[in-house]
């Protein structure tokens, strides 16, 4: 019956509109988080750059110790992989693209004969990897949205322990880099041994005169600096991951809202036609009935 169809359509339109309200709200929330998390990346930059400068200075002061701490490993028997994802879904391809990159990395490491231990930031990774037969040893949950430096410290101390004990020779980080508001890229970075000195630190190279003094001796200094540098790297990755997550979620929710708009429009058009149809049918019936009565007279 035509009237029944109209009622069903009305119900569907209502449900689409309710969903649209939710996606719109999520879009606005994510948008407000973007600027905040971007500001945190900017605020973190002086610390990160300062840490790099100090490490490089210390590495220049004692190349032998630096080589032990910073040189790439000769042979990797066991590696540790950290994947930075979000705690929540509904964020487009943000989670899946990091996790897929992590999966590829693990597969290629295993193909080279290394054993891999897997750690994750975010709630989503454990289920994803279990389904693919990889076990996540530990997930850090509840820190992906608004990471604090203390969170970064906790992650750093957990993943540094196997490296310090010699159980793994390499620690790799898979995370999303926030290049700009329009572009976020999934990158694999070697965390340990620290790979910092290869990174260009400053646009204009400052020329420093003379030699550098160290307090305490440089070897000791480097030994204590390395964990701080690791914390700093992880914190930056967490901040950029959070910003990328919010950006990605905002984009996904904007698309969902637009989609809901379109669907609602299509549905109400169909509904209007159905209503018009039923009215036309009704008029035809009345006219037909009147005609029949008149001709019957």
């Amino acid at each position, binding site marked *: 019956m035509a009237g029944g169809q109209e009622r069903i359509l009305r119900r569907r339109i209502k449900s689409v509109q309710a969903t649209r309200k939710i996606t719109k709200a999520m879009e606005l929330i994510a948008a407000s988080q973007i600027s905040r998390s971007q500001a945190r990346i900017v605020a973190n930059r002086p610390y990160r750059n300062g840490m790099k400068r100090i490490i490089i*200075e210390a590495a220049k002061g004692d190349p032998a110790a630096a080589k032990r701490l910073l040189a790439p490993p000769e042979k990797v028997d066991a590696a540790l992989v950290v994947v930075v994802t979000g705690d929540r879904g509904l964020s487009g391809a943000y989670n899946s693209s990091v996790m897929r990159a992590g999966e590829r990395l693990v597969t290629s490491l295993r193909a080279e004969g290394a054993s891999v231990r897997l750690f994750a930031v975010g709630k989503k990774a454990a289920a994803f990897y279990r389904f693919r037969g990889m076990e996540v040893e530990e997930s850090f949950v509840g820190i992906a949205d608004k990471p604090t430096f203390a969170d970064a410290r906790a992650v750093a101390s957990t993943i540094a322990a196997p490296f310090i004990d010699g159980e793994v020779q390499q620690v790799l980080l898979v995370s999303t880099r926030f290049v700009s508001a329009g572009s976020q890229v999934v990158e694999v970075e070697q965390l340990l041994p620290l790979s910092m000195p290869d990174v260009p630190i400053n646009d204009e190279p*400052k020329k420093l005169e003379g030699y550098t003094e160290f307090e305490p001796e440089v070897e000791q200094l480097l030994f204590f600096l390395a964990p701080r540098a690791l914390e700093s790297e992880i914190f930056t990755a967490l901040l950029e991951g959070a910003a990328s997550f919010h950006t990605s979620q905002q984009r996904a929710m904007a698309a969902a809202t637009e989609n809901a708009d379109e669907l609602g429009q299509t549905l109400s058009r169909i509904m209007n036609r159905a209503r018009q149809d039923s009215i036309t049918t009704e008029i035809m019936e009345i006219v037909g009935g009147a005609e029949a009565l008149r001709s019957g007279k």
Partner: protein
Amino acid sequence: MATLKVEIVTPEAALWVGEAQALIARSSDGDFTILPEHTATVGDIVPGIVRVETSEGEVAFAVHGGYFQVETSLSEGWTNVTVLAGVAEKTTDIDVARAEASKGRAEAALGASARGESDDTPAHLVAQAALERAELRLRAATR
């Protein structure tokens, strides 16, 4: 006269950036003062108070451990000091009531764990560190 530019930064924010006459702090080798034209240096900072002397008076910071770097160019006449600290705050920003409360909590936790025999359990170490931070904050705020 060469200038001395001081930067005190934490991972969350740059706490203070500006021109200064001197920076006074303590490394594991002892107290030190950085003046303009100080030679290039890299070192650590033990938990304590870092003082910056500016033309408008002194600014002090409670720094809970960190590192510093001095860069100098004699020909261009500048000296930069960067203090990197995981946790640090300006002494005037310290919430004394909160520091008192966390000191009380840490002492209570230490008292509880002192009844057990071992003193290197994670909980004990955490409480110890919290107590040291709270005491430094109070010392810095009530200087």
